[in-house]
Every structure is written in C-alpha cells, then in structure tokens.
C-alpha cells in the first residue's frame, strides 16, 4: 500500500479515535452502556440483599445480646497476679492477688504436690465468714512436722485465711492472707489470696453461682 493511500484512509479512523478519547476524558465507564431497566433491576436486587443482611445481622445481634446476661464475674490473671471484677465490659475493681507458687513439694514417702492455681472456669459454690483452715498433709511436710491423724484438733487453724473465704471447689478458695507483703507474687498453695479490703468488696459482691475465670 502506498503512502498516499494510507494518508487517505486515515481520516476514517479519526472519528472513533476522537470519540474514545472524549469518552475517556469525560469519565466514561462501561456503566454508560447499562440499560436503565437493567440498572433498576440490579438496584432492586441490591436493596433486597441489604434488607436480608440487615435482618440476619439483627437476628445475630439479638442472639448475642441474649447471651450477655449482665452478670458480675471475677477474672484471675495468674501471670500478672491480678483479680478483676467485671460486669459486661465494665471493670468494677482490680486487686493485686497471690496465686499458686508453681513449686513442687516432695515427701520422703513419695507423695508429690505441685502448687498451682487451677485454671479454667469455676463457679462460686459457697462463702464463709471467719473461715477455718484445715491443714492438709503438705502443710506438715513443708514444715518437716509429723502428720497428725485426719481429725486431729491441730489441723483446725483460725485466723490465717482472713475474714472471708469464697469456695471454688476441690479445696480451692479466694481468701485473705497474713502474708500481705507477698501479694502480687506466686506464693500460695493454689488458692487466690487478697488483702482484707479487697476481700471484703469481693465477698459482698459475689453470690453463689457467680462465675470465676482463672487463666
């Protein structure tokens, strides 16, 4: 093809080129080819989808709200030795506590104890005023003392657990302590220890059935 012919043919491409440039410059999009009826139909579908999603989300939200009972509960963080009293997302109080020492104790007869606070979800099973500590065998082993019989009066000790004890089951309790300078450390035999003021608040706030989460 000669150059002259090519130059003659060029103008035939000018119009589409000009149109495309114009469309690009004016923000052309493929939407401009969508027939108005199809657009109306698409919007109808999208609106229906929005309504469906809103309904589903409302249902899910209600379901979750129903599970949020608004009950007060306790959380014990055994790593940082903190007790938090919460209600929903609100923190009602935070207290420094003592938790299990994470130490082993071995008896000559072969018994071994590991003093760790129990982890998991618990329920307050009962509350005691002026609790009496019934010394377990490990307490005698720890002090190199002979172990007395089960109901020996020496086992019943007053004034070591503070004014109150909150029972969590399996012998574990939240109670007071004589060793207040050790609060904030791992020093107990598994129970959670608090100072007197915090213990008073916790004792008066919880009831049987209150959940306690220890992690």
């Amino acid at each position: 093809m000669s150059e002259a012919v090519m130059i003659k043919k060029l103008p035939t491409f000018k119009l589409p080129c000009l149109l495309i440039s114009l469309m690009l410059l004016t923000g052309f999009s493929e939407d401009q080819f969508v027939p108005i009826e199809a657009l109306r139909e698409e919007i109808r579908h999208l609106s229906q989808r929005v309504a469906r999603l809103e309904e589903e989300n409302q249902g899910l939200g209600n379901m979750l709200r129903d599970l949020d009972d608004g009950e007060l509960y306790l959380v014990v963080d055994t790593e940082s030795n903190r007790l938090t009293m919460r209600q929903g997302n609100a923190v009602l109080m935070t207290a420094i506590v003592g938790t299990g020492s994470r130490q082993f104790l071995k008896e000559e007869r072969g018994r071994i104890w590991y003093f760790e606070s129990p982890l998991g979800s618990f329920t307050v099973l009962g509350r005691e005023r002026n609790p009496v500590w019934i010394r377990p065998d490990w307490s005698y082993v720890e002090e190199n003392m002979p172990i007395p019989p089960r109901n020996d009066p020496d086992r019943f000790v007053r004034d070591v657990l503070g004014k109150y004890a909150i029972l969590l089951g399996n012998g574990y309790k939240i109670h007071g302590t004589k060793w207040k300078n050790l609060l904030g450390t791992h020093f107990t035999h598994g129970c959670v220890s608090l100072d007197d003021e915090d213990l008073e608040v916790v004792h008066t706030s919880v009831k049987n059935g209150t959940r306690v989460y220890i992690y």
Partner: protein
Amino acid sequence: MFVLSLFLMGADNGDQNGKEWGKLLEQRKQLNVRIKKLMREQDYLVFQKTMYESDSKYLIINIPAKTGQLKYKNRALKDVHFKLVSGRTSRLTPGALTLTEKIEGPRKRNLLVFGQSLVLQDKYAPATRSESGIPHLSLSRKDFLSMYYAVESGAKAFILF
C-alpha cells in the same frame, strides 16, 4: 417544525433519563458500600457466635482504637493497649486470624505469630519479621505475658477496623 419538536421532546426525555441514570448509579454505589459494611458486621457477629460456643480463649484487636481484648466465650478477661512497632497495619484486613506460632524467645522475649498477617510481642522483644512488612504490635510486658500464656496455638483473633 414537527421534526424539530420531536427532536426537542427526545432531548428533554434523554436529559430526564440521564438524570435518573446518574441517580441510579449513585444509588447502586451506595448499596454496594452498605453491603460490604453489613457483610463485615456479619463476619464479626458470626465470629462472636462461634467463639461463644467454643471453649477457647480468643482476641479481639481493634486497630484504629489500638486496643485489644482477651475473651472467653462472652466474657472479657483482659483489656490491653498496643502500639505499632513495625510493619504496616494497612496489610491487615478486617476478619479472623489464627495463632500459628508461639515463639519462646530468650529471657521471655516471646512472640505470638498469626501467620503472615500479624505478630504480637512485648515492647522489648526484637521485631524479627518487620522487614516483610508484617505489622508487629507491642504490648506492655505484663499484659503480653498474660496473653501469651492464656492462648494456645490455633487460637483465634478478630481484627476490627
């Protein structure tokens, strides 16, 4: 004259169609934005529902608020604040993540690794993976260790934006 009036009527009609068309396009855009938002909300609601029924602890990480929450079922166990120490949070997308690795570092400089998406660390831990752009969020040492020992590998986290 007749042809001219027909042309003008057509032009007027075309203008009206154009206006409606523009309105419909805008409406479609808004509906798509709303759907996206509702779907994100639903993801979070479904995540919560799943975790309420599960027996594992999990994390909620609110990126704009720079706060996190350790939760068990419907109970909040711990609230924390974090800082971005390296990487980019723009790499994160709202949604669920899985804890893939708990790395025990020297002197308890541990890391919680959520795949290629996120790393949680205490503020003294070295940001070993920062080169890759993975966001590293640092917590106070005490808060981080509480979280570190509270969650197991496979634990879930949900990123909120």
